[in-house]
């Protein structure tokens, strides 16, 4: 199997699907079970599923590597961003359509072959590089420009083809809704009729895309997601839906204490169980030839694991449960309880931080003899992204080649990781990106695809579909980190902070929400000192929707509220005064919008309260950057301590909006995500192991728990030219808005999440 053939899902045939002995596996330490899996002849191949049902009909012409046009005017766009339900695919198709001027109702999409990029001189990534091209984020300026250019270029070639056909000047041809019209004579040609001639045309120079104020689709129309019909009728193919001829299934178990190692396992005990083909052992200490991936080495490292491979998944699961396994827990087992970890985290805050993250003015001196101190300590726990599609993937390893079918969040990262683990060149790595059943950061590093390939390569010639059980996925996460911080402020004579000290334990990712926010930049608070303390733990961490910001916005906005309460100033008014000189009108606008729409300040009965919070994702300390979000929570706490969220209001400023409904969907979903994170989520530890394995112990809000009054308001938009991210921001202000509302309702300050673990009872006095 050589040559640059595109792996077509429909045509996929396993030319090498044979089957002889698998390679021998084993061997960790002298005691490890040594097994040679014997592959029995496989069943007759069945039809492989079509992974991307949008296929161009016969006769389609490739105008560029990105665009195919069929005689019936269907436009097939190849999209390089994975679709995880966030609408990135639809947004990119809209952007190309804006310039191509094709008929939106005839747009189809498929995912790009990243392999082709390696085989054909970076046809896709020449501009942005593979890390930026084969990843999410549909509205970054570089990507917007790229997609607009792709559309404009194709349109100009179609116009040129029509002009040549009629022997008229190109300037007389108008392109609109897949029709080319010769304005002086009214003659018309459809895109499909000239696509073949257009494909042969080279433009003397590339056209310039039109300016944003002339857009007719972007920012004007709100098409629903192109994937919606597939999702509704069940034909959408996620990673877990992949079925291939001769496919085997693997059930996986990694060291229950992260960082541990497999000591031994007894294959003999299960080898005669129904359907069992063998076991695969993954040894993280085995030397691997590194390929440079998007994230550095380490995040996607293999963990010590054993998998049972069988004809069906349930057979593999049952055999794995029956497999005698012994683990060397290593150092992680020293952490007997969650409380022990929390106390150790708090203890680190007693000392000056090891690293000074930021220091402006004379904060420490002012705080040393302040007359009006506010001080508070906060903590947020480990949380799991818990995407509903469990981690999974399918790989077929043959001689010098690997084929992968996988729901990657960043195709480039998964592709390079698969190549590295298989030990083959990227040119011989064929990656089929499926739809993604949620990621929320869990699938970014591609640690999942590494294990998928590590298992499959022990059964060469057979596709192996590895599925994490829900319990395995939840206990073997790359979690939102445990974070603790102590805040200390001195209030000046107007009640506003004049000096702020923040000491953070387990800092992570640029301290987003603390070090990059308006309070700590441009001398909004004149003296700021931020320091951090590492606190190494064995538990693996990663990206969880809005990394670090999802904790730090809670800390910062709770603390600002505590300052307002100490100063005796209304929390909305307090923030407006504090941000009075901040040179970005979006902040004030968001606060005023959400306050007006939520009925801020209205009289509420005892036990009820409103809380406000404002934060920004990804601003990097700069005005008119990132996405600002302000929230008001209106809550009731019953005397018996039951918390009821009566209303949530959100305003936002991401500059401009390209698809109002898509933005609304992300903001609503993000609010509910932030709500669940704050009310419910906490992973606990026992003897170094994560305890929670499923939704019985790790609760998720259901439809009936979701506030019916959940409102997104568009009046905070500043109209600034940026198109910043919308998925992460709403997670930030929801928790602190609720905590601040609880304080107003009960006088109780909750400084840790999840709120469900707090005693909120109060008595009438």
């Amino acid at each position, binding site marked *: 199997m050589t040559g640059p053939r595109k792996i077509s899902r429909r045509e996929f045939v396993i030319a090498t699907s044979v089957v002889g002995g698998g390679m021998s596996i084993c061997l960790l330490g002298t005691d490890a079970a040594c097994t040679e899996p014997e592959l029995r002849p496989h069943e007759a191949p069945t039809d492989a599923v079509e992974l991307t049902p949008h296929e161009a009909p016969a006769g389609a012409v490739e105008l560029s590597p990105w665009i195919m046009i069929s005689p019936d005017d269907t436009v097939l766009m190849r999209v390089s961003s994975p679709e995880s339900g966030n609408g990135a695919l639809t947004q990119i198709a809209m952007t190309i359509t804006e310039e191509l001027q094709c008929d939106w109702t005839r747009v189809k999409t498929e995912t790009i072959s990243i392999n082709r990029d390696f085989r054909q001189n970076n046809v896709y990534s020449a501009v942005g590089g593979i890390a930026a091209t084969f990843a999410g984020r549909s509205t970054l300026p570089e990507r917007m420009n790229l997609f607009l250019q792709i559309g404009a270029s194709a349109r100009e070639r179609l116009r040129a083809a029509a002009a040549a056909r009629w022997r008229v000047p190109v300037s007389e041809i108008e392109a609109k809704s897949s029709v080319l019209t010769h304005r002086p004579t009214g003659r018309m040609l459809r895109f499909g009729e000239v696509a073949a001639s257009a494909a042969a045309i080279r433009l003397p120079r590339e056209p310039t895309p039109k300016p944003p104020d002339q857009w007719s689709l972007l920012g004007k129309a709100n098409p629903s997601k192109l994937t919606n019909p597939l999702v509704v009728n069940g034909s959408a193919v996620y990673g877990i839906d992949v079925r291939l001829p001769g496919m085997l299934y693997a059930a996986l178990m990694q060291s229950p204490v992260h960082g541990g190692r497999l000591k031994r396992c007894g294959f003999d005990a299960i080898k005669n169980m129904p359907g069992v083909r063998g076991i695969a052992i993954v040894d993280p200490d085995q030397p691997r030839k590194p390929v440079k991936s998007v994230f550095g080495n380490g995040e996607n490292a293999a963990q010590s694991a054993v998998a049972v491979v069988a004809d069906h998944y349930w057979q593999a699961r049952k055999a794995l449960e029956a497999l005698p396994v012994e683990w060397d827990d290593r150092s992680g087992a020293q952490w007997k309880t969650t409380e022990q970890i929390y106390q150790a985290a708090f203890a680190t805050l007693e000392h000056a931080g090891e690293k000074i993250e930021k220091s402006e003015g004379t904060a420490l001196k002012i705080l040393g003899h302040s007359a009006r101190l506010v001080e508070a300590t906060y903590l947020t726990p480990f949380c799991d992204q818990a995407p509903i599609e469990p981690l999974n993937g399918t790989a077929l390893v043959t001689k010098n080649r690997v084929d992968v079918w996988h729901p990657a969040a960043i195709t480039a990262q998964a592709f390079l990781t698969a190549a590295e683990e298989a030990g083959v060149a990227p040119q011989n790595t064929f990656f089929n990106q499926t739809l993604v059943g949620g990621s929320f950061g869990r699938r970014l590093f591609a640690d999942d695809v590494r294990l998928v390939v590590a298992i499959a390569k022990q059964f060469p010639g057979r596709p192996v579909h590895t599925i994490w059980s829900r319990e395995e996925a939840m206990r073997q996460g790359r979690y939102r980190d445990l974070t603790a911080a102590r805040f200390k402020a001195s209030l000046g004579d107007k009640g506003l902070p004049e000096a702020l000290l923040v000491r953070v334990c387990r800092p992570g990712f640029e301290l987003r929400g603390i070090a990059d926010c308006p309070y700590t930049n441009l001398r909004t608070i004149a003296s700021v000192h931020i320091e951090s303390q590492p606190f190494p733990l064995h538990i693996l961490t990663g990206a969880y929707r809005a990394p670090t910001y999802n904790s730090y916005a809670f800390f910062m906005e709770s603390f600002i509220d505590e300052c307002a309460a100490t100063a005796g100033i209304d929390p909305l008014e307090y923030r407006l005064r504090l941000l009075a000189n901040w040179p970005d009108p979006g902040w004030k606008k968001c606060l005023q919008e959400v306050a007006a729409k939520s009925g801020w300040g209205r009289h509420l009965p005892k036990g009820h309260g409103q809380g406000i919070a404002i934060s920004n994702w990804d601003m990097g300390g700069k005005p008119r950057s990132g996405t600002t979000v302000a929230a008001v929570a209106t809550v009731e706490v019953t005397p018996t301590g039951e918390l009821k969220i009566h209303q949530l209001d959100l305003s936002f400023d991401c500059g401009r909006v390209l698809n109002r409904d898509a933005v609304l969907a992300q903001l*609503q979903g993000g609010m509910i995500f932030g709500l669940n994170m704050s009310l419910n989520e906490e992973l606990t530890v026992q003897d170094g192991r994560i305890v929670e394995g499923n939704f019985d112990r790790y609760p998720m809000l*259901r439809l009936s728990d979701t506030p019916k009054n959940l409102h997104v308001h568009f009046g905070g938009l500043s109209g600034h030219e940026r198109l910043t991210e919308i998925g992460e921001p709403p997670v930030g202000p929801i928790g602190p808005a609720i905590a601040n509302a609880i304080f107003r309702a009960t006088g109780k300050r909750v400084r840790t999440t999840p709120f469900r673990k707090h005693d909120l009872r109060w008595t009438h006095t």
Partner: protein
Amino acid sequence: LLKDKPRPTDADIDASITNICRCGTYPRVRAAIHKAADMMPSAGLDKRS
């Protein structure tokens, strides 16, 4: 749900739809059920009766 209750109330939906959605589409699920109920032929008959 619509078979048993062609015009479900919010409470009916709360009681019947207990699926977990991590993306937080609940407000849209609720709206879609009401919309579907409006489109069902049986709902039309209800209206006429």
